[in-house]
């Protein structure tokens, strides 16, 4: 238990310092941030004062050390565009991002589990193959493309749903569908594959010999067993999932971290960008930690190894 926590914590520190350092040097190497902030018609004094206020006149080592120090205190400085401390801005947008991600993830699981099992059980019939073909198509459409399709159909043609923002309760529908579609399709296919593999296992045969119904064997026993490899894939997918969330937010102008970061990119607002990357790193590592703990709950063999 403590080992898992420790290893995740270590990972978190490595990731944050690694990425922070990378961004720090890239920013310094690629040009003078002061120029970017001051804009094209700034005077030399203007630039000099910005340099001084940002500490850019000190040596690069000094700057780096103070950057690390700030990293530890979560102080990323003020956003250039909003003129407010960057971290609180990000934290204020966080609930929206979590809301979107959670709904999308739930949607993916709720659809993929029955669809995957259906495709496995009906593997030789037309309907089972149809599920697989649809999921293959679903896996091939990036979230922002699905977003465009959804907007066209439901906002432009049918006029049922708002095409951007998070004003109405219904606003969550399109972004979450767009974000979950790839995952839904992928999990449908994987659940089918794992399910078919699991059908060979002795415990399935035992269940049949005990006269259990297929439904019981599928949903109670097989599902429990495939949740172990599925969990590890979910862990691997988390990063991509959050990446997708950023783009979906941009498409639907969803007021989360993603939208904030895209704006930061366009405005070269580095403090905001760094704070965003940092927040997402922490979020992903924490989600991975939850996955680890779920592992322990589901698979007694892993639990035994840890204890």
């Amino acid at each position: 238990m403590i080992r898992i926590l420790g290893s995740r914590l270590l990972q978190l520190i490595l990731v944050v310092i690694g990425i922070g350092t990378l961004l720090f040097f890239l920013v310094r190497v690629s040009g003078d941030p002061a120029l970017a902030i001051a804009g094209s018609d700034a005077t030399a004094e203007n630039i000099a004062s910005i340099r001084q206020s940002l500490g850019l006149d000190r040596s690069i080592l000094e700057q780096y050390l103070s950057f690390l120090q700030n990293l530890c205190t979560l102080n990323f400085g003020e956003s250039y565009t909003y003129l407010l401390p960057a971290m609180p801005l990000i934290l204020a947008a966080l609930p929206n991002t979590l809301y979107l991600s959670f709904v999308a993830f739930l949607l993916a699981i709720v659809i993929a589990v029955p669809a995957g099992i259906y495709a496995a059980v009906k593997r030789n019939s037309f309907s089972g193959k149809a599920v697989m073909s649809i999921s293959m198509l679903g896996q091939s459409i990036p979230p922002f493309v699905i977003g465009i399709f959804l907007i066209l159909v439901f906002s432009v043609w049918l006029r049922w749903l708002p095409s951007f923002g998070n004003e109405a309760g219904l606003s969550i529908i399109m972004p979450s569908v767009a974000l979950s579609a790839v995952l839904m399709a992928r999990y449908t296919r994987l659940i089918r594959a794992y399910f078919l593999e699991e059908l060979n296992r002795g415990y399935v045969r035992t269940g049949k010999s005990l006269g259990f119904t297929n439904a019981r064997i599928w949903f109670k026993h097989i599902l429990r067993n495939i949740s172990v490899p599925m969990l590890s894939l979910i862990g691997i997918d988390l990063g991509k999932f959050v990446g997708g969330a950023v783009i979906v937010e941009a498409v639907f102008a969803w007021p989360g971290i993603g939208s904030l970061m895209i704006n930061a990119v366009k405005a070269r607002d580095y403090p905001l960008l760094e704070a965003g990357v940092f927040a997402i790193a922490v979020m992903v590592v924490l989600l991975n930690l939850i996955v680890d703990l779920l592992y322990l709950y589901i698979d007694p063999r892993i639990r035994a190894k840890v204890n």
Partner: protein
Amino acid sequence: MSQSNGKPIVEVSNLDVFFNTTQGKLHAIRSANWSVSQGETLVILGESGAGKSVSVHAATGLLPGTAEITGSIKFEGEEILGGSEETLRQLRAEKIGVIFQDPLASLDPCFKVGAQIAEIFTVHRGMSKSEAWAEAVKLLDSVQIPDPERRANQFSHQLSGGQRQRVVIAMAIALSPTLLIADEPTTALDASVQVAVLELIKKLRNERKMAVVLITHNIGVAASIADRIAIMYGGRIVEIGDTKEVLQSPRHPYTQALLASMPKIGAGASKRLVTITGTPPSLATIPGGCAFHPRCTRAIAKCSDVVPEIELNKNGSLHSFACHNPEEAN
């Protein structure tokens, strides 16, 4: 023998099993006839690939969908071949218990063994969780697992091989089936544990008056538990009869050869072990005529052309065999 007086549980007659494959139809079981009665143990003995498991699982409805089964299988007097999936499921639930070869694989790794046994009672007997759990612990005790309370709370990977197989046996007998099928129940176990598991099966059979069909490739196992033995080769039963008769005066050359290939305690170094030359045929390459003729030392011309029919109850004898040129009776 007393066993023949019991009421017949399973009667298989003229059973043929085919598998549809890309290589065409494979004829896995060829006109098999056997039956087993209450309290009796029938052992089906043969090398792997002889069709032992297929012939038995045809009766449980556990063969894959590609299997095509003809003939007749009567369970407690009722024809079950061609019955609905639901009838077969009910039958498996209430009347048939099955023990498989690999006890670790047979158990669900994600649930406590107690919970797996209890599930049987909650599903088929409608018990509450706590009642079912108590029943599961009782059952673990009856299959001689020491400290059943503690074991019930463990997972399959925490048990030893012998204990696992006892758990599997407990699950198989949970609903007091009339037929227990044991498919190589001791093969995956250590030699020392094998004997204990066989003794347990014997004890349970006597207590519960079950019919037992045990599948094995091990003559020692067969000898220690069987009332009757059926020898299978190339998808056919080539010899069937009371254990004593089959083992002491085998008539089919294959049975004879099998026995000769087994070391006998006390026989000393003077008697050499005889091995059967050649390898057993695969389903796709079963030779014409008597399937054993290419490896048979007593083969005559007829053997490669005409399939020897097994003559059941000839002259009132329960010992039957399928051979054109049988060994002399002792």
